[in-house]
């Protein structure tokens, strides 16, 4: 149903404001709290959504074959130590997120350095 590239523009008008159901809500991050505690309230509320994302990503990785299971285990079990190497306060913030969400620290670290890994 779409054209062959290069794609040509369809400049729309009058689309603002969109439906309010699409408005992104705001949450407060209190920098006066210890880094480990800053994200707790947010992550606890959003745990299912974050978990859902990481499960989908792991499922996508698994589609490449059984050998990828070793990579997932490596991330879950051995990637967490990288949090100690990250600059302050970021390592401690990630540890706080892992604790509050119950997700493996390695996965939380990987999620946060995703850009550096995939820019190639």
């Amino acid at each position: 149903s779409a054209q062959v590239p290069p794609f040509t523009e369809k400049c729309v008008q009058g689309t603002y404001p969109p439906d309010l159901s699409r408005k992104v809500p705001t949450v407060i991050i209190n920098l006066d709290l210890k880094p480990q505690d800053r994200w707790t309230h947010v992550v606890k509320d959003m745990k299912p959504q974050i978990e859902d994302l990481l499960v989908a990503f792991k499922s996508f990785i698994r589609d490449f074959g059984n050998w990828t299971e070793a990579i997932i285990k490596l991330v879950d079990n051995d990637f967490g130590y990288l949090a100690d190497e990250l600059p302050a306060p970021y390592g401690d913030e990630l540890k706080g997120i892992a604790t509050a969400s119950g997700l493996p620290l390695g996965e939380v670290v990987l999620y946060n350095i995703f850009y550096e890994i995939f820019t190639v």
Partner: protein
Amino acid sequence: CTSIVGQDLNGRMYHARNLDFGLFLGWDIKNNTWEITEKLRPTIRILEFQRSGKTLYKTVNYLGYIGVLTGIRPGVFTLTMNERFNIDGGFVGIFEWLLGNHTGQWMSFLTRDTLEQAASYDDAKDRLANTPMLAPAYYILGGTKPGQGCVITRSRQKAIDVWEMSSQPANSWYILETNYDHWKKPMFLDDRRTPANKCMQKLTQKGMGIAGIYDVLSSKPVLNKLTTYTALMQVDSGHLECWLQYCPDPCYPF
């Protein structure tokens, strides 16, 4: 991604962006969507970072991600980051970092540090242009004064180009960046730059503002199946709003 910094006829500065993510991360043939893109949308939040009850800066984040891709320091500057693909990419930077070379900064932590610490547009520009990094990137920066807008093209080591809004006489009221070096043609399969520029020309400076720029970013193929959100910022008022984006069929996959 597509980022735009522009000014209206009164010199008020606006900065907006589409964040596209999830290319090749699983295509759902039933719904014609990218799987990871769909999973990311529910995690999007505006974050207000406060100290002593005062808002220091605001960002748009996927929850669980603590770095910054889109942010505003109210009354000082606005900042977005677009991905830059390069063979000397982040994988090399991480490898060096694992070997003990910690001189490079992580991309999203540099942006957060900049939002937290930079006292002015020029200070932010200097930090983003000159801090060694682990991965290449495009930083799009907007200030408070007319003409204060630039695209910083980063290699891992330094800025290889700083493209100023005021340096393009024909369209000096805005500057626009997607995911390609501005002095090169974008890949023909992924040319969102030309359509976005055409929509900006149709908008004209008279139409510049939150609503007008939202229209441009909602125009296909600037809006595509990878677009998770559109963020709109006005630096003087410290205004940041964000809308989830969906691209109904027929829509381009990227």
